[in-house]
Every structure is written in C-alpha cells, then in structure tokens.
C-alpha cells in the first residue's frame, strides 16, 4: 500500500515556499507543526515566569521582585501554561496525528484550521503586551491569579484586565474552531473500514475532548463577557451593590474550569494509550473499557465543579453531592491506570524515551490523582484549600502529567514527522533530569501545603524555608533540562539516523504505514482498514 501512496506523492508533493507556506497554510501537518512550536515557545516563556516565582520563594522575605509583580507572574504563568502550552500542544498533536491515524488526506476544514492557529499569536501577543507595559511602568498586568475571581478581576482589576478579556475571547474562538474541525474530521473522514470502535485511543480521547471544548469554551467566553460588562458598561453580574453576587462568578467559572482540566488530561491519556502498547509489544488491554472510561470522565466533569469552592459556604447537602460525585471520577480513572498496567504485564517491554515518559506519566499522574481524592473530601478540603498542597496536586497532574505526555508524544512521533531518529542518549538524559527535577520541585510542596503555606504569596514563615529551598533547586533542574529537549528536537530536525516507516518494532496503526518523514499530502487514496 505504501508503494501506491508514494507513487501519488511524487506528483503532488510540491509545497508552497517562503513565509507564505506558514501564513496561508491549509496543510494539517504544517499547522500541527506551528501549533507545536507555538506551544514550545510558550513553554519557555511560562517556564521563565515559574523560575521568577521559585527564585523569589528560595528564601523567606522579599528578595527579587515586588509582591505586585509576583502576583502578575503567578497569573501569567498559569494562563500561559494552561491556554498557551498544554492546549495548543495537544491541538498540534491532533492536527498532525488524527488525519494520519484515521486515514484521511487532511482535516475536514483546512482554512478554518489556519484561522484557529493564527488567532493564538494575537491572543498571547495581547496578554504578554500587558506584561511588557507593566515592565515599562505603565500599570499592572493581570494580577488576580489564573482563575480571575471577581471582584479581584472586576472592581479591583487593573486596566490591563480588558486586554486579558479579549485575549481569552480569542483563545476561546480558536479552541472552539479547532474542536469543531476535529469532530468533523473524525466523523466524516475515516478510511473505509475504520469504524468508531477501531479508532486509535488517541483519536477517541480527542473526539471526546473536542466535545468538552465545544460545551465549555462558550461558557468561559460568557463569563469574561460578563466581566467586561461589569467593568465597562455598568452591569452588576458580580457586584453585590447592584444585586449581583461574586460567588456566582466562581460557579460559572468552575462550570467551565472543571471540564477544562479534563480537556488538558484526556488527550494525555490518549497519547499514553498509544505509547504503552507499542513498547510493551502487546495490544492495549481493555480497548472498549478505555473508551467508556473516557466518556464517563467527560460526563462526570460537568457535575463536580463546586468541589473547587467547598469553603464558600455551601449547604451540607451540596458539599456531600459534589464530594461523592468527585470520588466517582476515581473509578473510570482507575480503570485507565489498571488497563495501562495490564497492557505492560508480561509484555516484551523496552524503555526508549517515549516509554520512559509514558511510565513516568502513569506513576506521577497517579500521585496527582490520589492527592485529588484527598482534596475532594469536603471536611478535609478546608485544610488544603488555597495552600501549596493544591499547587502540588495540579502540578503533578499537569506538569508531570499532561506536559510529560506531550514530551512522550514528541519523542514517539518525531521520527515520523522528520524522518530522523532523535538522540536516544539525550532523550534519556532529558527524561531523568525532568523526572528527578520535577519531583524535587513538586513533592516538598505537599508538605508545606499541609503545614499551611498559602499559595500565591511572595513571602512565607520561617518553618517553610528548607522545603521551599529544595523546591527552587528542583525548579531550576526541571527548567534548564528542557533546553536539552529543545536541542534534541532541533538536532533531530536537522539530521540523524534515518527512521524506518514503522519506526518502532511494536508500532501499529495507519500512521506507521506512511513513509518517514510523512509526505506533505498523505492518504489521497484512502487505505482500507480490516
């Protein structure tokens, strides 16, 4: 079959040259590449902010930055990592891999695809412009935390909050268009024989994630629109003086926010479900239970939002409902973890870099999952609320969880993207430094959090000093080891040992039937799936 494909590509594989290739691109691979590079650049921008935060927290007292600037750092670090790194990273992977995995020639809506990407630099340009203005002494950048609770972001928000609002609008439009595109592609462009229950798990998880995006990004757009009106047009959605309620902000925000955290983790589950079977050289254990578990997590994500607000004074009945509903999520998540472990069980495992990151993901994400279970217990949450324990929890699931899976995916598929093998030694070095650095960074946060250190504060009491110093050392190891990743990616693009079409011995799926590097246009003749 690959011979047939190559034959066609000899005729059609011309691509536009120069900057126009990227600006006007409608090619899913080029757009995927742009998404991934955008995500990578933002990873370093957001990471630099994290290092400012950790450097300030190296010792108690105020050393490097003003508290006001510290708040801007925590806010922008959160916003950039969530909306600028994890989400575009996964959309980039979806753009590259979904059409190839289902045997489609491209995405269903290539021009809209171009637009969804090119909104992002505008959105983040606007957000980062507010920081640049702040550095030039022209008022503060957004400083209310990535959750932008009212009235901090409405009554007390700095002037740059309006930049932030429009930036979120643009990100929202971009994500919604991306999600519609992915759903349309998956529903209409599967190769003959590729039934829903034969789709790779990565495609399934993205299919469900796209539905989540379509359901909740409009709610986020709604909540920032209400903020905009409260700030500029005299409404009182969140202003008690005019009959509004700031607690309602939290309800509307978390109605978006909780599904959002699954938007950031479901594609990670998909990536790991591709990698583990490949390197265990077995089929994935419990394919259909994986699909149903993903769907259940997506459904449950809509009915648990108030576990973020146990301390707002909810009635006991409400706390119990949200507590039990949240505990339920552990069941489908546990199904997934056990399926991955069962897939590895008695497999012929090898530990190339993607597999190391995938196993690291399973292990560290599960730690984050367990701390999540601790926090869902409403009476206990009063102790954990707004402490570093929360920070430890969501960094275990997002940094050593979602970000690990994106790194795993890059190592896994980069031979297919570039036609070259990456440097395995550097990859392993990158993994071990990241894993060890990450744990030195995030693990002590559990202890200081349980002991009561609040999050988003630039200073702390003396008893937290040792653990904070440790975390800062870990942060610098974690941060600088990403330069190895960058170097390795660039080195792989520029050359290296040629990859075979299948790349990995245990690799299975349509994308591995294409030549490496994947031709500019693939599957113009649809493959048949048996």
């Amino acid at each position, binding site marked *: 079959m690959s011979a047939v494909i190559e034959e*066609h590509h000899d005729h*059609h594989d011309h691509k536009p040259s120069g900057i126009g290739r990227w600006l006007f691109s*409608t090619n899913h691979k080029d757009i995927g590449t742009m998404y991934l590079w955008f995500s990578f650049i933002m990873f370093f921008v957001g990471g630099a902010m994290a290092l400012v935060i950790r450097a300030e927290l190296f010792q108690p007292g105020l050393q490097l930055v003003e508290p006001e600037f510290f708040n801007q750092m925590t806010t922008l670090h959160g916003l950039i990592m969530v909306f600028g790194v994890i989400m575009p990273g996964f959309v980039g992977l979806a753009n590259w891999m979904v059409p190839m995995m289902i045997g*489609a*020639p*491209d995405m*269903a*809506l*290539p021009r809209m695809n171009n637009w969804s990407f090119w909104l992002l630099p505008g959105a983040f340009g606007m957000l980062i412009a507010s920081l640049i203005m702040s550095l030039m002494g022209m008022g503060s950048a957004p400083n209310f935390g990535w959750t932008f609770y009212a009235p901090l972001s409405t*009554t007390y928000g700095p002037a740059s909050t309006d930049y932030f609002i429009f930036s979120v609008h643009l990100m929202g439009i971009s994500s*919604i268009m991306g999600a*519609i595109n992915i*759903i*349309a592609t998956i*529903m*209409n*462009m*599967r*190769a*003959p024989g590729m*039934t*829903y*229950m034969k789709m790779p798990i990565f495609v399934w998880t993205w299919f*469900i994630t796209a*539905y989540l995006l*379509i*359901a*909740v*990004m*409009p*709610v*986020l*757009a*709604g*909540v920032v629109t*209400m903020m905009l009106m409260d700030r500029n047009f*005299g*409404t*009182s*959605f969140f*202003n*008690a*003086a*005019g*009959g509004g*309620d700031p607690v*309602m902000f939290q*309800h*509307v925000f978390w*109605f*978006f926010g909780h599904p959002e955290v699954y938007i950031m983790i479901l594609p990670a589950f998909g990536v790991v479900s591709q990698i583990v079977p490949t390197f265990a050289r077995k089929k994935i254990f419990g394919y259909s239970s994986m699909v149903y578990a993903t*769907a259940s997590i*997506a*459904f449950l994500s809509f009915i648990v939002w108030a576990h973020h607000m146990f301390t707002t*004074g909810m*009635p006991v009945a*409400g706390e119990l409902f949200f507590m039990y509903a949240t505990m339920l999520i552990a069941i489908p998540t546990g199904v997934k973890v056990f399926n991955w472990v069962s897939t590895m069980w008695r497999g012929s495992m090898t530990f190339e870099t993607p597999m190391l990151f995938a196993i690291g993901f399973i292990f560290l994400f599960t730690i984050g999952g367990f701390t999540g279970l601790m926090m869902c217990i409403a009476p206990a949450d009063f102790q954990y609320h707004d402490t570093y324990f929360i920070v430890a929890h969501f960094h275990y699931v997002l940094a050593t969880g979602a970000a690990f899976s994106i790194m795993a995916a890059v190592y896994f598929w980069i031979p297919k993207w570039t036609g070259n093998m990456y440097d395995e030694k550097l990859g392993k070095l990158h993994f071990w430094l990241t894993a060890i650095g990450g744990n030195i960074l995030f693990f002590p946060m559990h202890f200081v959090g349980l002991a009561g250190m609040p999050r988003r504060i630039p200073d702390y009491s003396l008893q937290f000093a040792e653990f904070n110093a440790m975390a800062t050392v870990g942060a610098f190891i974690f941060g600088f080891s990403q330069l190895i990743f960058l170097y390795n990616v660039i080195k792989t693009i520029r050359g290296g040992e040629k990859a075979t079409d299948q790349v990995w011995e245990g690799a299975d799926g349509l994308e591995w039937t294409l030549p490496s590097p994947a031709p500019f*246009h693939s599957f113009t*003749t*649809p493959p048949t799936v048996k």
Partner: protein
Amino acid sequence: MDTAVTCSVPQLYNATDGEVRAEEENKVTSHPNNIEGVNKNSTTRVITRLMFVVVGMFGFGFALVPLYDVFCDITGINGKTGDKVTLAENMQVDTSRVIEVEFIASLNGSMPWEFKPMQHSIKVHPGEPTRISYVAVNRTDKVIVGQAVPSVAPGRAAEYFQKTECFCFTEQKLEPGEEKEMPVIFVVDPQLPDDVSQLALSYTFFIKPSGASNSTASLANNSNQEI
C-alpha cells in the same frame, strides 16, 4: 453522547465509504488537498449542529445568572432574605419562644460612611413585629448614594426572617455631613425551626455604581406597594 455515537456508526460508515469512492473517480481532475468538497454535505451538517451547541452553551452561561438567583431563593442559601413580605397581622405571636436577633453593620470597600445599628441585639417573640434602626453618617463633602444588601445567618433561617420595612428596599442618598436614622420593621416567622434561637441580621452598604440596575430595590418597591 455514547448512545448517539454508537447508533450512528453504520450510517456514517456507509456515507464515508460512498463518498470516498466518489472521490476516487474524480481524483484525476481534483487536487489532493482539495478535500473540502469531499464530504461537503455531511461536514456542513456536523458544523451546523456543533455551532448550535456553541451558541446554546454561550447562552447557558448567561442563563446560569437567573438560575443561580432562583436556586438561592428557593433554598435560602447565601442568607438571601428575598423580597417576601407577609402581613404581620396574619401571624400568631408565639410567646413561648424567645429569639435573640443580633445586628451587624459593615461597609464595602471604599464606602466612606459611618454606619452602625442603634442596638446590638434584641430579644423578640416569633410573630411579633419589631422596629429597630440603623444610623448612617456621611462625613465627606460629597453627595453619596448607597445601597444596603441584607443577609441573615444562619442561611436556612433566612426565609423565616421577614422585613416589612427596610432601608435596603431603596437606595439611600446622604448629603455632605448628613446623619440619617434608618428603620427596619421585621417579623420572625413562628415556623422558624425549633433549634434556631439566635439570628444575625447583617447589612453591607455599597456605593451605588452609577447606571447599575437594582433588582433588589425594584422588587422590594413593588412589594411595598402591595402593602
């Protein structure tokens, strides 16, 4: 979502299959990247449906605002005393119970008034209309319009606390240096759960944002007219 997906499998599969064959026939003339035409109808259908979801969810975000208020009114969460006004005469005074009502006054943010209750607490029988007052002073040299927002604790007792007259029903305007005594007439409903023996009534004064609509005040005004 699950069932819908499962049900539509055979149909979609056939559609894809047929259209792919059609594409193969046209392959000689069409550029491979021109895939927009391939599944145009079904793609348009999918996009139309998804756009309805997007618009619907944007609307749902706003619908949460009234839903939230209705939910709080029904359950009495938030200590919202609502706009219920019941005629005091309809109630039997229950002399066997004594309820202590405490009064709290607070000012929001940059509100420059002085504001306090004339008495810290009062003991009442359920069903007995009681009149108390708060006092506010504007010591600035500007005219300031304020709006008081009431709250009753514990929240589950809020629906049994009924005000027949309150300065929170309308906005209050104080001239520079003006001092104003502001009365509240309230009744504690005899239906109040037995285990509640203490209530706290709290008012927070906000500077009235210019141009803001005031649902609390307008609702309360209507109720007053009924009396």
